[in-house]
């Protein structure tokens, strides 16, 4: 069988023009599909940045919350109620909100402020410069050194600026796993300082972060929190909810899905048509092989091998090209939100297999229908 496949390989790659056209089609399709889905994955990842960075196992929120950026404040007593729920190891409040920073040149810059529980600092970022206890110092804030850092004019330890007309001092420079979606710098401070600096509604707790005693306690906690009229989600569920919001309740998901489908169609069109032409041009040769004594299943293996080889090579090239482009883009554009994930790669691989399958199906039908008698008739 290896000999037959080697014949198929030589027929394919020695027809350089067609092979190149096939590879271009598949590579282009894979590139677009991976790029589109990576962009979407990057956006979803950034939309869940706070959830990822804080790292709590469970989040308690108002049931109407759809994304982490749009919290609906809860009354303080909910925190006490949650702390008393069976199975809760500990529960702390979290504040998230927006504020305006006045820079040295007088310009205003929007920032995202995260207020951590004063007693535990649960969810604190990893400090690069400064001391963690300095967050309790007067007017102390940590600034996150990410792609938005420069929008605050690259502050240093001791930099002073106005935040909602209050004096604020940078006492630490920190890093987090994921940057936010909306392109604004992030400051961390204590929960109560955040409430002092930022005008709030009557209720002040954006989220309650819960650490269950064990994973087995999670369903019970959810049930009891629901009885209080609130919603408790694990971090994965919360990120899933955020992803669902962007996918199904904004135009973003549908548009990217359409682009991905179009990439698939373009790839299928180019590759399918080229492969069909390739098979047609070699049809008489396949007929001759059939006359000489090749069995139908051997011819099918040849076609499938050619389609699979082209698809896998194109897939590798497409993924490589996309990775290269994303790496270059991230070097030049720090804000570029795109990450290649295994599900993305798996989906593109599946799509490529579909392209190869459809292309080879048409070829196989043609080859099976060719009668060796037609070869004699010329």
């Amino acid at each position, binding site marked *: *069988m*290896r*000999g*037959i496949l*080697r*014949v198929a390989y*030589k*027929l394919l790659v*020695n*027809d350089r023009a067609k092979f190149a056209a096939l590879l271009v089609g598949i590579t282009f399709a894979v590139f677009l599909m991976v790029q589109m889905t990576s962009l979407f994955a990057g956006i979803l990842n950034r939309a869940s940045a706070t959830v990822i960075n804080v790292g709590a196992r469970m989040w308690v929120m108002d049931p109407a919350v759809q994304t982490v950026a749009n919290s609906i404040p809860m009354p303080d007593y909910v925190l006490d109620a949650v702390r008393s729920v069976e199975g809760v190891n500990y529960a702390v409040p979290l504040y998230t909100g927006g504020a305006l920073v006045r820079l040295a040149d007088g310009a205003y810059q929007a920032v995202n402020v995260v207020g951590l529980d004063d007693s535990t600092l649960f969810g604190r970022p990893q400090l690069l410069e400064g001391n963690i206890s300095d967050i309790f110092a007067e007017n102390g804030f940590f600034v996150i050194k990410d792609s938005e850092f420069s929008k605050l004019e690259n502050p240093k330890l001791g930099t002073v600026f106005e935040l909602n007309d209050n004096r604020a001092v940078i006492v630490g420079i920190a890093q987090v796993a994921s940057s936010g979606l909306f392109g604004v710098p992030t400051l961390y401070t204590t929960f109560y300082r955040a409430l002092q600096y930022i005008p709030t509604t009557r209720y002040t707790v954006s989220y309650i972060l819960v650490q269950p005693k064990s994973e087995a306690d999670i369903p019970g906690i959810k049930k009891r929190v629901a009885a209080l009229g609130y919603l408790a989600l694990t971090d994965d569920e919360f990120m899933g909810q955020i992803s669902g919001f962007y996918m199904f309740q904004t135009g973003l998901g549908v548009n990217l899905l359409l682009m991905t489908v179009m990439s698939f169609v373009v790839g299928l069109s180019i590759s399918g048509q080229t492969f069909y032409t390739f098979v047609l041009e070699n049809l*008489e*040769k396949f*007929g*001759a*092989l*059939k*006359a*000489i*004594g*090749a*069995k*139908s299943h*051997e011819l099918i293996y040849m076609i499938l091998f050619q389609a699979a080889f082209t698809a896998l090579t194109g897939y590798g090239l497409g993924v490589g090209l996309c990775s290269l482009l994303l790496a270059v883009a991230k070097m030049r554009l720090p804000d570029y939100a795109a990450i290649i994930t295994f599900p993305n790669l798996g989906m593109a691989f599946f799509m490529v297999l579909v392209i190869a399958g459809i292309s080879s199906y048409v070829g196989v039908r043609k080859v099976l229908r060719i*009668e*060796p*008698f037609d*070869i*004699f*008739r*010329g």
Partner: protein
Amino acid sequence: MANVAIKASGLSKWFGEGEARTVAVKDVAFEAYFGEILYIVGPSGSGKTTLLSLISGILRPNQGHVEIDGTDIWGLPNDALATFRLNRIGFVFQDYHLFPRLTTAENVAIPLILKRRNWDESVAEALKYLEIVGLKDRANLPPVKLSGGEQQRVAIARAICSGPEILIMDEPTASLDGDTGRNIVSFVQKNVLNDKCCIVIVTHDDRISEFANRIMKMEDGVLKSIDNGGPHEE
């Protein structure tokens, strides 16, 4: 009498049904023997190519039987018939049907590769047959770089490299000039024909009739006559 290589009896083949039915071959019976070159001649549309396909296991007859060396080939399942063709019948097509993307040697090795022989061994074996047809020095060229006569010889090398008992040649001289055509058939007679091989040639080229042991004349799908061919050595 020599052993019977091909025995056809009551062979009929028609295409279409009802009023559209066209009879291509009608009730043909004949025997071909090992050690002979049998020509099938006739005007265009006389059914000679159809007959060739029927006796070589390529086109299933509507009626009749074909035995090759005692085996009823149309009683074989499809895969077994393909294997039978691979092992016992060699084909030289009118248009050669060589693979332009393979080298000449690889083209010749195709039947051996289909027999699941090792690639390198098959190509090495193919070189021996290219030597027989005088084209060993062209082994690494693609067939498109060869002349028509050379391509025909490559096709012959491909057909004989698996040691077939029946060699089927369809219009082997149609694309060749007179001298080249004669040389090709003369070559086959001298180098391929033996008492364990039967060669069936479809042609309407009178210039090569001298190489035939017997000549079957077809007309309107009917076998009209079987005559002795031109001068040949016994």
